[in-house]
């Protein structure tokens, strides 16, 4: 097992100064940094192995195809899918949700039907459903959350009815860090035969995900939030559903026979991967997964839970600071407000100290409205962060307090 103190060295970008101060990267919920092994793997693929897949009989193409297929297997194993064919490679979690909304939701939904989401969704799990609702006459119904930022399970159960045709909710909140009781909710939904999509964009970098144990029908995530390249993402779908779904986009690679009399499509996953995919992205993602597997979830969870505890205590000690999102179960994501200091001003002041955080609505405007804030500042941590960085964050926030006389 690697030592926590040396993990940082695996990430070349962390070794730099910003505004004359060592970079303290606390914006991991926006995107995670990439370990050198991922950067090197993408580079070696592009410089030594690049070719298009699934078409050439030549050496490079065959090897690239093999590497791409191995990436699919690695992802399947990573989330414990039943088969590699249940893993569709897409551009990111957003595209995966759009794919399901269009290829699955549209054929299922009729006027008056209901799509269940929660008040804490990222816009990526609201807007695709609204677009489909507009076409089909269905409605998007939000489940209430509590003031602590947890799903109100009573409201959840009361919103399920015979018009509920699909449920789609966030596994871990990007804005609050809440880990939702997904398995329990899925059990309740599946008992009524309601298909479930779980948005795992923020979950996959913090904990082991087992889609069969969760029992969801679809699971989506982005590679770039999992230490892999951007422009790359994953849709997991149960084979039974995927095999009945229509293509999302048409093009090369997804067809069996094309003629002007009619075209037939391949089975999943190829049916949903029109055109040349992000081959180097898939290969980089596999390397990121290998890196995480080497590190081990026990190590990651141990480091992150102690960072979360330390950071929560540190922030709570600042009088004017209010943590937004105080769920029992959280990943190390800390959203907060500070009296009259606006989040953008806080983020600017932190940036001048080399500290990168996110300020704004976190692509969750309905959530901000529910919580009665227009924006928050968010520090989101990963296992490569450390307590010294949190101390620096605390000091910088003390200065914010001083500037704004909180």
């Amino acid at each position, binding site marked *: 097992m690697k030592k926590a103190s040396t993990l940082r060295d695996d990430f070349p970008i962390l070794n730099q100064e910003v505004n004359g101060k060592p970079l303290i990267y606390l914006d991991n919920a926006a995107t995670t940094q990439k370990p050198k092994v991922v950067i090197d793997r993408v580079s070696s693929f592009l410089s030594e192995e690049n070719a298009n897949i699934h078409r050439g009989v030549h050496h490079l193409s065959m090897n690239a195809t093999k590497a791409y297929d191995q990436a699919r297997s690695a992802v399947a194993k990573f989330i414990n899918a039943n088969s590699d064919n249940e893993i569709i490679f897409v551009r990111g979690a957003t595209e995966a949700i759009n794919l399901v909304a269009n290829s699955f939701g549209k054929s299922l939904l009729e006027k008056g039907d209901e799509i269940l989401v929660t008040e804490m969704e990222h816009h990526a799990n609201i807007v695709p459903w609204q677009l489909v609702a507009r076409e089909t006459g269905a409605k998007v119904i939000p489940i209430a959350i509590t003031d602590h930022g947890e799903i109100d399970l009573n409201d959840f159960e009361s919103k399920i009815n015979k018009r509920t045709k699909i449920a789609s909710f966030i596994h871990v909140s990007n804005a609050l860090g809440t880990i939702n009781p997904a398995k329990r909710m899925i059990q309740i939904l599946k008992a009524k035969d309601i298909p479930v999509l779980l948005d795992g964009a923020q979950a996959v970098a913090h904990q082991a995900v087992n889609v069969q144990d969760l029992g969801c029908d679809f699971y989506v995530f982005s590679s770039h939030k999992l230490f892999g390249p951007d422009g790359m993402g994953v849709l997991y779908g149960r084979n039974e559903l995927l095999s009945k779904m229509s293509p999302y986009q048409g093009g090369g690679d997804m067809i069996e026979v094309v003629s002007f009399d009619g075209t037939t499509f391949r089975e999943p996953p190829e049916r949903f991967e029109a055109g040349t995919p992000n081959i180097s992205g898939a290969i980089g993602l596999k390397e990121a997964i290998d890196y995480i597997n080497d590190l081990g979830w026990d190590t990651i969870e141990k480091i992150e839970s102690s960072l979360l505890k330390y950071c929560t205590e540190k922030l709570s000690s600042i009088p004017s600071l209010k943590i937004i999102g105080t769920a029992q179960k959280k990943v190390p994501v800390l959203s907060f407000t500070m009296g*009259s*200091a*606006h*989040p*953008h*001003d806080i983020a*600017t*002041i932190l940036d*001048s100290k080399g500290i990168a955080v996110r*300020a*704004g*609505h976190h692509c969750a*405007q309905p959530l901000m409205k529910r919580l009665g804030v*227009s*924006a928050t500042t968010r520090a989101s941590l990963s296992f490569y962060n450390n307590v010294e960085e949190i101390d620096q964050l605390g000091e910088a926030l003390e200065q914010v307090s001083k*500037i*704004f*006389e909180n």
Partner: protein
Amino acid sequence: MDDLSDLYQEIILSHNKRPRNSDPLDPSTGQAEGFNPLCGDKLTVYVRNSENFLETVSCDTDGCAISRASGSIMTTMVANKEIIEVEKLIEDTKLLLTGEDEPEVDLIEHGDMAALIGVRKFPARIKCATLAWHALESALKGNNEATTE
């Protein structure tokens, strides 16, 4: 002074804390909303003007210190002026904040807006400083919305 204290000068912080002329105007002859979709800053500029003369202005801002201060300072600078003068002030301010060349600051001409010049060192925040001015321009032209995009 370092860049940060340049940005958060006393005068900015004072306008942020107690924005001048922030109540909606009643009656008004026009109003426009300014919205920065990137960060969520929102403000409304109200004007009472004739064809050639801007009698009074107010700016109600839900946003960061820079956007609040800029809107507040703006209301103190443009009221009771010929429209043609106001239009020149808008152009001068845009140039002051976003012009390619380092501007020469004229304290009389630019007034308290000169305090906002520190924003030039923070490219991510320039739109916060220009938002109210874009909204004023829209309100005078009879448009109801201005965004920074």
